[in-house]
């Protein structure tokens, strides 16, 4: 049975991991994720899970060990943030290249330099091309739900891919919020037993993992990864449908908020979407037809669906809590691509890009209001300024 609780995002995710009862957890501490692996270590110490704990000496080794363990043939978790994910980068590609369904909460945090421990999306966006499935979460409830679903998605026999579950550092990871847990048995039944595929530890049928593949077949191998990624969307939808039956909470590839009849909209990830929804309600009361689209599945990116959902709008601002220096914000590039492809009838929204909230800078209702009012003017024909702009900068 579900249980309503008031917990931090980290506690919620740690409990999802406990309920999944993985075979191996390899870990390394880093703010703001540390709380998750601390809690999980207590679960192990207190016999609440059967998991073998591996305290690695770095994130690179944590991911390497996760790969060795997952190749072995069992359920594996780890968790990280920021510099930790950056240090794992090499191994992220190897986890996905070997089709190993490692589940990893990523508590989003800024990247150094300068050093900053607070929440932004630079880490997750930097890992978008590593072949991992990425699910992004607005609050503790979504992070918990996504973590549970991640096991079903990653371990699905049609894809077998590692999954990163993202939530905002501190803003969600360390804030207490109301949410609902599923019962331990419910989660156990939902996730089901781990299904092995070609395990390294099958002694009777020895296998070689990680061969050298040169010019004659590497290209084909990567094409296969591309094809597998193409199957993820349906798996996510199927698992999310089943999850809705279990929990009553519905998830799609993204969330639309008052979008269908809107003229203007924000595209925004994670916690800032919640703040924006309040302001959208306020502007709706004033007769401004504002809406919001919050991506959930960022990799693979559902271009067609998102393009379709946005194409009727007059103006859209893509909000990025990360920058691709020398380029537009990473989300903006995706939305531009989605809309370019979606434009079948010679009409597409005016598009602007705001970089906000880097290094944990607060995103306040006033920020959302300012952007939406600017969009409102653009929708009425006001000239476009710079496409990409940092907002809320202290000059």
């Amino acid at each position, binding site marked *: 049975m579900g249980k309503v609780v008031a917990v931090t995002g980290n506690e919620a995710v740690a409990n999802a991991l406990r309920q999944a009862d993985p075979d191996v957890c390899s870990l390394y501490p880093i703010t703001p994720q540390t709380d998750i692996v601390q809690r999980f270590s207590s679960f192990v110490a207190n016999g609440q899970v059967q998991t073998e704990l591996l305290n690695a*000496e770095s994130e690179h*080794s944590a991911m390497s060990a996760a*790969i060795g363990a997952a190749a072995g043939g*069992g359920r594996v978790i780890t968790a990280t943030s920021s510099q930790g994910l950056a240090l794992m980068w*090499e191994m992220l590609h190897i986890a996905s290249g070997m089709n190993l369904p490692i589940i990893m909460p990523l508590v989003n945090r800024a990247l150094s330099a300068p050093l900053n421990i607070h929440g932004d999306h630079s880490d997750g966006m930097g890992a978008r091309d590593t072949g991992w499935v990425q699910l992004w979460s607005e609050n503790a409830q979504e992070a918990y739900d996504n973590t549970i679903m991640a096991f079903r998605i990653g371990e699905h026999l049609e894809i077998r891919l590692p999954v990163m579950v993202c939530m905002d550092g501190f803003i969600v990871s360390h804030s207490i919020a109301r949410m609902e847990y599923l019962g331990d048995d419910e989660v156990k039944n939902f996730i089901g037993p781990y299904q092995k595929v070609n395990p*390294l*530890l099958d002694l009777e049928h020895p296998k070689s993992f990680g*061969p050298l593949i040169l010019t004659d077949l590497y290209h084909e191998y990567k094409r296969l990864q591309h094809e597998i990624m193409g199957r993820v969307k349906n798996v996510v939808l199927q698992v999310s449908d089943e999850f809705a039956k279990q929990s009553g909470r519905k998830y799609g590839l993204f969330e639309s908020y008052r979008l269908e009849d809107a003229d203007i909209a924000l595209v925004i990830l994670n916690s800032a979407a919640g703040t924006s929804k309040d302001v959208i309600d306020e502007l709706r009361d004033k007769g401004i037809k504002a809406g919001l689209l919050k991506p959930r599945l960022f990799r693979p990116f559902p271009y067609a669906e998102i393009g379709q959902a946005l194409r009727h709008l007059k103006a859209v601002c893509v909000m990025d809590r990360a920058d691709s220096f020398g380029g537009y914000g990473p989300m903006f590039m995706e939305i531009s691509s989605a809309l370019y492809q979606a434009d079948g009838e010679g009409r597409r929204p005016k598009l602007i890009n705001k970089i906000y909230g880097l290094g944990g800078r607060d995103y306040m209702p006033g920020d959302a209001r300012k952007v939406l009012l600017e969009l409102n003017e653009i929708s009425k024909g006001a000239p476009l300024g710079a496409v990409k702009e940092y907002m809320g900068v202290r000059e």
Partner: protein
Amino acid sequence: METRELLKWSAQVKLREKSKQEERFEHGHRMCAGCGAPTVVKMVLMATEYPVVVSNATGCLEVSTCIQEFTAWKTPWIHTAFENAAATLSGAETMYRALLKKGKMPDNVKFIAFGGDGGTYDIGLQSLSGAMERGHDMLYVCYDNGAYMNTGIQRSSATPLGADTTTSPAGSANPAGKLQARKDLTRIMAAHGIYAAQASPSHWLDLMNKVKKAHQIKGAKFINIIAPCNRGWRTATDNSIELSRLAVETCYWPLYEIEDGKLKVTVVPEEKKPADQFFKLQGRFKHLYAPGNEGMLERIQAEIDRNWERLLKESDQAC
């Protein structure tokens, strides 16, 4: 393992018999003719009379033994990257314990990581240290050929003093080649409080005894094995065993083990040969015999002597 049992086992080992044992590292791989590494791997696996899971660091051994659909490994084998053969294997070993606990695995499986000196002394040192400190039930074998041979003979921290490599070349401004002594990795590993040993394929029974003994010890073990590389050492393709024997007989590569903090020299050469006999066969030391490098060979000999004396002293104290 009890010394008595080990002696009994050693007495029973006949190389001819061993050569008939089913090999888990097959012929047909693409290592260079004359390379010492495959011999080392064969000996290690021959002495491993259990099911074994192997992890391999990126390097010569890895790129030459599992290419596309071909593999020389008839035992579970995994390669992930360069610096993390130990971490990768520690993960596999942890999964093994998780499954063993649930009754899903037999209880006699051994875990061995193979890495070259680049992947072990240098880029993989942290990962190796971590895995050893955590006490995973695994054996890490470094096949030490004294440079990054796979990428074309670049200097590593295992490269001997005075060696000419492509990144420590002997030239007109620096006629000496590598200016630093080798890192003493075996001792660093012993400082983890684990079983650590040095071995050489020339002394196959000593090598296999050490592997056999390591497998009887629960926890992390490390064996450093010299593996001549004719490409990097600038030597002939038919003398890798001779070279590794000379390395032992000159005490350049002493054979010893450290167990429970006690050091034991396992092979004392009947006659300690001058280092020159080992060095002069190798093109990588050719420049040391040329004008401008006076005193280098003496310095190298002095280093070897000092180390050997220290080992003997410690070995005596332990007896």
